[in-house]
């Protein structure tokens, strides 16, 4: 077994429905060894560092194509990591969540290497279509990078949704499982995004917190999955029709966020001075 690999995680990765070849790599370059190694680290944060509560995970299909569509909360892909972690640690059977990465990541040394070994391919329509046609589980954040740039005060809001995911769902006849992620804004309370400094580091921007570095604090995080939404169509509908469908998904997610935010408030949501 590889160094830094947990036995339980290794067993869960084994049970994922991914076809690895004799070198432990699948058709997209996903590496079993890297999955186990990274998920071992992720499991520590998921189980020990944060206090994660997942609701409605039974709504995610146990197999076959589906799109997990949700809100961004907290910079640095904390949302994506927790969704991925929930499907690995809590779903039965465990499933591999695959995201579409920003194009700039692929051109950075190690960026493409790590993201592709974990199943996150460059954000191209061809990749998304192929993964779904291959019965994989795709994670989509229709808010795009504007969503990760939300400041602390806007942590429970949604910015504009892109519409590409809806055409993709219609074309590939994939069910959409809306989800809401809460607490990311408390974990990484962003008070400003430095664009110029970020550019120097090869990033779109650098989030700044009251304690300067965008390191996540050990707070409680909640994930709500809702019933799958299935839309009928070809994907060639007018923009107006697509926009209506997208709004339905956005409303569902907004409802989940509202529900979650009330519960957090009732519990006395941690605040940042």
């Amino acid at each position, binding site marked *: 077994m590889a160094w830094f690999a947990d036995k339980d995680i290794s067993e869960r990765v084994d049970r994922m429905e991914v076809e690895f070849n004799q*070198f432990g790599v699948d*058709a997209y*370059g996903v590496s079993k060894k890297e999955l186990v190694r990274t998920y071992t680290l992720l499991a520590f944060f998921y189980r020990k560092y944060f206090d994660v509560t997942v609701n409605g995970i039974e709504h995610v299909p146990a197999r076959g194509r589906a799109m997990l569509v949700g809100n961004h909360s907290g910079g640095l892909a904390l949302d994506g990591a927790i969704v991925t972690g929930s499907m690995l640690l809590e779903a039965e059977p465990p499933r591999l969540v695959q995201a579409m990465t920003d194009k700039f990541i692929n051109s950075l*040394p*190690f960026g*493409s*290497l790590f993201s592709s070994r974990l199943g996150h391919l460059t954000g*191209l329509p*061809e*990749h998304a279509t192929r993964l779904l046609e291959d019965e994989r589980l795709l994670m989509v954040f229709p808010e795009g990078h504007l969503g990760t740039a939300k400041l602390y005060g806007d942590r429970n809001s949604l910015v504009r949704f892109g519409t590409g995911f809806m055409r993709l769902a219609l074309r590939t006849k994939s069910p959409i499982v809306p989800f809401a992620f809460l607490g990311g804004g408390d974990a990484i309370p962003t008070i400003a995004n430095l664009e110029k400094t970020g550019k120097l580091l090869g990033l779109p921007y650098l989030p700044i917190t009251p304690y300067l570095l965008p390191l996540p604090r050990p707070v409680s995080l909640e994930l709500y999955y809702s019933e799958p939404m299935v839309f009928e169509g070809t994907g060639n509908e007018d923009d107006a029709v697509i926009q209506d469908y997208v709004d339905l998904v956005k409303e569902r997610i907004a409802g989940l966020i509202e529900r979650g935010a009330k519960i957090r408030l009732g519990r006395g949501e941690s605040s940042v001075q």
Partner: protein
Amino acid sequence: MRVILTGIAGKAGQLVAQELLERGFEVIGIDKRAWPNAPEGIQIHRADIRKRAAEEVFRHERPDAVIHMATVTHLARRSEERYRINLQGTRAVFDHSHNYGIKNVIFVGRHTFYGASSVSPLYHKEDDPPQSVNTFPELSDLVAADLYAGSALWRYPELTTCILRVCYTLGPACHGTLSSFLRGKRVLTALGFDPLFQFMHDRDMARAIVLALEKNLRGVYNVAGPMPVPLSVIIKECGRQQIPVPEQLFGLMQGRLGMPRVPRGAVAHIKFPVITNADAFREATGFEFEFDHTQIIEQFLEACPPPH
């Protein structure tokens, strides 16, 4: 069936010639180079495909089909010369085929047509545009030859034209781009990048080309073997030592310390994958690869062990 095979003296050409013979074809080779010890029953004409002597072969032999493999891929040749051979040679093949009543023409192209870049998708389909013109300008003559050959589909509708974009080959022939890349004891790679590579056995490549002819295939098809694997895995399995180097240092390291020379544009090909989807070819011909990764690498290692 009488088949003209251009570029017959090359390693790949020889394999295709042998496969044709085994399948009962009559083989007529055209090549500037000699093929010493060629198997009996193969007629070889030493001629340049762009010259009159080659046309004479078409006129006299009146073959039924042409397999065009006389293209230069290695980058040692000056680009002007490559352009003349790859593009004008291809033009001559199609003109002669049209003029002398040939039924089938197969152009053997390469998967590198699609080019490697950070934003190109995995599993290219045949209708994807050629990005290598941009990422690897040294390959533009091959891209042009591929597209020119494809234009025969509408220019000469009476010809059954087939363009095959074949992935890297590896195996006992110890020939080709990937094989040369793996020849030394140490293999330079770009630090922080480990693209997927697709390769097939030399003999599977030859079988696929002959199968395209037997099935009377028309159109453009990707040809590939087993599923792709990361470059680092290939290097390790081939008993070579991987030396990851920051891209900026590439120019300095090349040709030194036993490292091979790689043209600038080629660096993109060891940073990003060029992977094709060969489903259409499989469906049209029923092609199945015979050799898996392990067999291919075993045979390559036997013929081309790491130097001491």
